């Protein structure tokens, strides 16, 4: 069923379609429409779930942890400061191996107060043990949430997953979203049945004091799970395409086969980049785009494969690791180095704090890379 809706509503309908039973959330701009929509869906009985309107994002994640540990499928949504407040409990969810799904509206971090798009919030939670997906449009937000449960709940994965969508560019922009019927969802998504859960007839204590004799093995198991998750994301993407006709992988290549210059982008900038590629192709420039959809686990093999023929690679980051460079740039560079793929790499920071990244901006970025040797990082559009 096709409906016109904004990205926040797409996230809400994603949770409803995924048969989520428990939601705990706290409002924050620009995620508020998610909690409002979910409140309405639950209150109207359209969504068969309990929604706890908790007193903070920290408690939202903590409550989801409690419910998920009892074997209940849970969902929450947040943004920016809210995600940062959750940081501690994000770790608890991941090492506790609870396949919670969270929609995060990518918003810049204060100070100064900013409600506009950038990925500093989620990038700074890179090492919490959460899988991270960056969506390009509202359909992808909706579909990714449904796939997320299937991936995350796989017994050999059991990791939480964060679906990121850009503030306003998606959260408050309406697009057509094709919603999936419940009976089809039931065929696609099996019920959540964890091996260990809080159950008085089979009592276990979870997360107890873990000595240096054991902690490392559990960390290694996280590594194995992340590796497995890469496979599951691909498999589930293929299965999803078979049933619903839309394909999602770890990355998405656009006109890169013969490209001399490849842009590497994520989130909504990926959409603008594809348009830019078309414009530049008309000018006779062999440019392509590689969208990185999944940031954790990082698809290093796919990235290397996609970039192996490029003469120049430009990574566009809507985030910054202070004192170094954009986080995606670091990851791409590291992936290429690990595989022995050496080529000129340009790290371009753009769109920070919600500044618009237009086709013009991306053209400027390509021109810059064509005209000079790499001097990373570049701050595109800063009034110098």
């Amino acid at each position, binding site marked *: 069923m096709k409906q016109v809706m904004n990205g926040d509503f797409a996230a809400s309908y994603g949770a409803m379609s995924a048969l989520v039973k428990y939601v705990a959330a706290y409002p924050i701009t620009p995620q508020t429409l998610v909690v409002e929509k979910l409140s309405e869906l639950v209150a109207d009985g359209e969504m068969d779930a309990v929604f706890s309107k908790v007193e903070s994002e920290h408690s939202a994640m903590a409550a989801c942890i409690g419910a998920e540990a009892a074997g209940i499928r849970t969902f929450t949504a947040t943004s920016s400061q809210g995600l940062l407040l959750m940081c501690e409990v994000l770790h608890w969810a991941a090492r506790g191996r609870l396949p919670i799904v969270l929609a995060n509206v990518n918003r810049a971090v204060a100070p100064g107060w900013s409600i506009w798009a950038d990925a500093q919030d989620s990038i700074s939670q890179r090492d919490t043990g959460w899988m991270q997906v960056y969506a390009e449009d509202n359909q992808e937000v909706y579909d990714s949430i449904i796939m997320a449960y299937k991936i995350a709940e796989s017994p050999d994965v059991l990791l939480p997953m964060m679906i990121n969508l850009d503030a306003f560019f998606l959260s408050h922009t309406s697009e057509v979203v094709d919603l999936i019927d419940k009976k089809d969802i039931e065929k696609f998504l099996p019920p959540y049945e964890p091996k*260990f859960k809080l159950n008085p007839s089979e009592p*276990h204590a979870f997360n107890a004091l873990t000595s240096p004799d054991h902690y490392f093995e559990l960390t290694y198991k996280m590594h194995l799970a992340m590796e497995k998750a890469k496979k599951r994301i691909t498999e589930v993407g293929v299965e999803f395409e078979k049933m619903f006709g839309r394909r999602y992988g770890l990355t998405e290549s656009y006109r890169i086969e013969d490209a001399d210059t490849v842009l590497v982008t994520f989130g909504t900038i990926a959409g603008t980049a594809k348009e830019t590629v078309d414009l530049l192709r008309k000018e006779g420039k062999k440019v392509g785009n590689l969208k990185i959809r999944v940031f954790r686990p990082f698809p290093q093999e796919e990235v290397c494969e996609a970039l192996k023929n490029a003469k120049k690679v430009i990574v566009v980051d809507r985030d910054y690791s202070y004192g170094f460079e954009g986080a995606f740039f670091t990851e791409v560079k590291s992936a290429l180095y690990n595989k022995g793929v050496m080529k000129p790499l340009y790290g371009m920071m753009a769109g920070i704090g919600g500044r618009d990244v237009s086709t013009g901006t991306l053209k400027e970025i390509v021109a810059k890379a064509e005209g000079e040797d790499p001097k990373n990082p570049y701050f595109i559009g800063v009034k110098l």
Partner: protein
Amino acid sequence: MTDDKKVELNKVSDYPEMPVSLGSMLWNKTSSWRNFKPVIDGTKCIGCGICWKFCPEPAIFPTNPPTVDYDFCKGCGICISECPTKAISKVDETR
């Protein structure tokens, strides 16, 4: 989870995904914590159950007279100070 076996975790595949308990603490005989042991004199005991009631381990069985579980008694001495008939004595175990 009622036996006193230790759980064998020798390689990664032995481990559960998350830190979840797979056994009780009964392997952990806490008797080594104490330097005296409480000894109940059955002739003075009135069967009031107070020593059993106030044992924090618990390491006193509710027999009459009560019996101390010397595998687990940590020697805190609560039973000795709470016994209304002073039927429990403190026997030194230090060497």
